[in-house]
């Protein structure tokens, strides 16, 4: 039995990390959404590959959800919002992209180091997969905290969640993966609806969270 299948799995997982970096690198919303769609595609590919590896047909559903929902519906929906709000070419990072990239590097290094050092006992494949998944998760969080407006935070959250799905798919024979991915899709749907909601009511004319901070309680 050759290592090829595993290497492909690694390749896809690593690819996901790379795409995460791409996302951090983007500072225009429209571009960001495109990259995210690509992120979802890579995810679904790697999930599908895992399904093929583990002979777990139900993972195909997860992959399908990822493809349709995350690569298709959500980005287009968000894209529409962004266009309607006319913030698609906005530059809205908090710290410069450079520092963010550096931080991202650090996070990836951290996650790899962590995996290598503490989970010496676990089986290597799972470990490396997990290292990548962890990296994606952390990068997603990083994106959430370094971006100003809600749309890019949503995107960051979704990339984070892609990392989760990756990890779940990588975990051999983990039950409920499908349910979890479904649940997460619902969650994200909620978020998007939330964003919609804030736009539909005329109260928040922008989705920039700073605008909402005026309504923070306990200031009276």
């Amino acid at each position: 039995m050759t290592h090829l299948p595993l290497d492909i799995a690694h390749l896809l997982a690593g690819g996901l990390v790379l795409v995460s970096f791409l996302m951090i690198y983007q500072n225009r919303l429209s571009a960001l959404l495109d990259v995210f769609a690509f992120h979802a595609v890579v995810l679904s590919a790697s999930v599908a590959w895992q399904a093929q590896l583990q002979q777990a047909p139900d993972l195909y559903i997860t992959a399908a959800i990822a493809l349709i929902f995350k690569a298709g519906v959500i980005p287009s929906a968000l894209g529409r919002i962004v266009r309607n709000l006319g913030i698609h070419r906005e530059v809205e990072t908090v710290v410069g992209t450079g520092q963010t990239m550096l931080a991202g590097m650090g996070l990836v290094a951290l996650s790899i180091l962590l995996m290598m050092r503490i989970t010496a006992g676990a089986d290597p494949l799972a470990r490396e997969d997990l290292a990548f998944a962890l990296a994606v998760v952390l990068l997603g969080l990083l994106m959430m905290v370094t971006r100003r407006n809600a749309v890019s935070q949503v995107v960051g959250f979704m990339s984070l969640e892609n990392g989760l799905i990756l990890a779940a798919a990588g975990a051999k024979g983990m039950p409920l993966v499908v349910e979890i991915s479904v649940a997460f899709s619902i969650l994200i749907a909620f978020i998007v609806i939330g964003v919609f909601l804030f736009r539909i009511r005329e109260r928040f004319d922008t989705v920039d969270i700073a605008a909402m901070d005026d309504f923070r309680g306990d200031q009276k």
Partner: protein
Amino acid sequence: MTAIALILLIPILAAAVLALLPGYRLSATLNMGASGLTFLAALALLLLPRPAPTSFFLVDDLNIVFIVLNTLVGFTAATFSASYIGHEIETGRLTPLTLRFYHAMYQVMMFGMNMALLSDNIGLMWVSVELATLSTVLMVGLYRTHEALEAAWKYFILGSVGIALALFGTILVYMAAQPVLGEGTPAMVWTKLITRAADFDPGMLNLAFVFLLLGYGTKVGLAPLHAWLPDAHAEGPTPISAVLSGLLLNVALYAVLRFKMLMAANPATIPVGPLMVAMGLASLIFAGLMLYRRRDIKRLFAYSSIEHMGIIVFAFGMGGPLANFAGLLHMVMHSLTKSAIFFSVGHIAQAKGSQRIAAIKGLTVSHPALGWALALGVLAIAGLPPFGVFLSEFLVVTSTFARQPVLAIGLVLGLLLAFGALILRLSGFLFGEPEGDVTPVRASYLPIWLHMGLVFLAGVHLPGAIVVWFQAAARLLG
């Protein structure tokens, strides 16, 4: 088994019915009835012989405590809400439509929490916690004011991140278990995990626990993950504030405890006690400081919830039979007392037409019954006898000082900080010339007095059966 089924089915069915049912009076009654039935089912679960754990559901000494408490407070909160929403309808802050939604969501939330507490499967537990969270998010935003939406949004984002982290932790636990227990469901069944935990890869468990602690800890409201809690409490309808403080925090705490037990079962893992102690102490002192500058009465008590969660986590972090017993007792006492406080606060806010602390003065003159009820609650939560909180704080402080003097001093300082702030505000609420509206309101005192009665009973004489029961649970926690 049937009892479990009832505990889960009643809420979900009620939710379905309530979603369709117009007319808020009827649905309020139904809501109350359903919660009551759930409570009865929980009692049955407590009294009948325990069913054997399945791969999805589990009943043991630990979670039965949580379940009974959960259903009880769920019931009393529903009773309170019945009288609360009447007033809200009159003032027009809520519409019958939103109320229909509210009642349905209430039951969904109860369903989620009950399932989380009953689940023997860490995946199921995660799903149900998420469910409970989402339903509460929707209720926090119920009033549709800027503040409410902002609070809901904050709660939602932070909660979702927490959920994500918790899920990652869950996956890690599975991956730690999978080599030992084999693929598939068994590797997610807690009862199986705990038996073989010793053979798991400790590193994996450590990593998992970090994520689980942060993930579920966000829901527990531990500083610095607490940010959602005060606003969610302050801006949502008061029954929901009561349920959040009284129940949801416990559910999240329950999850943390389960995984702590898992860690404890594997000697090679990092000691999680110090971690929890540190977070608990941080939350306690931080919340103690925050209490001083609050202007909104509900936010005030929300921070006091953070403070008490800190104490509880501290106690569980210390471990040992005394501290665990104290932690468990403190959790129960806090749920009962804090929800009672929120009940009276809800009525007071309605009477005064404001939640601003500055607007609430001289209650013992203008609304004696409400005022003294609030006084009892606050004095109890501040750790004064003859109430149960005093018993638990007594045990925590004394047992800690004998083992870790420095920690105990930190604990005492935090307690004093919080005590000072609460008493300062309380004497403002109760005494001086009454301000604002002094017209009496019709309030439902039954839930308040029921809770305070129980808390008083626990403080003066804890029935032997309960002691044995709690001690068993404390032993489970190790």
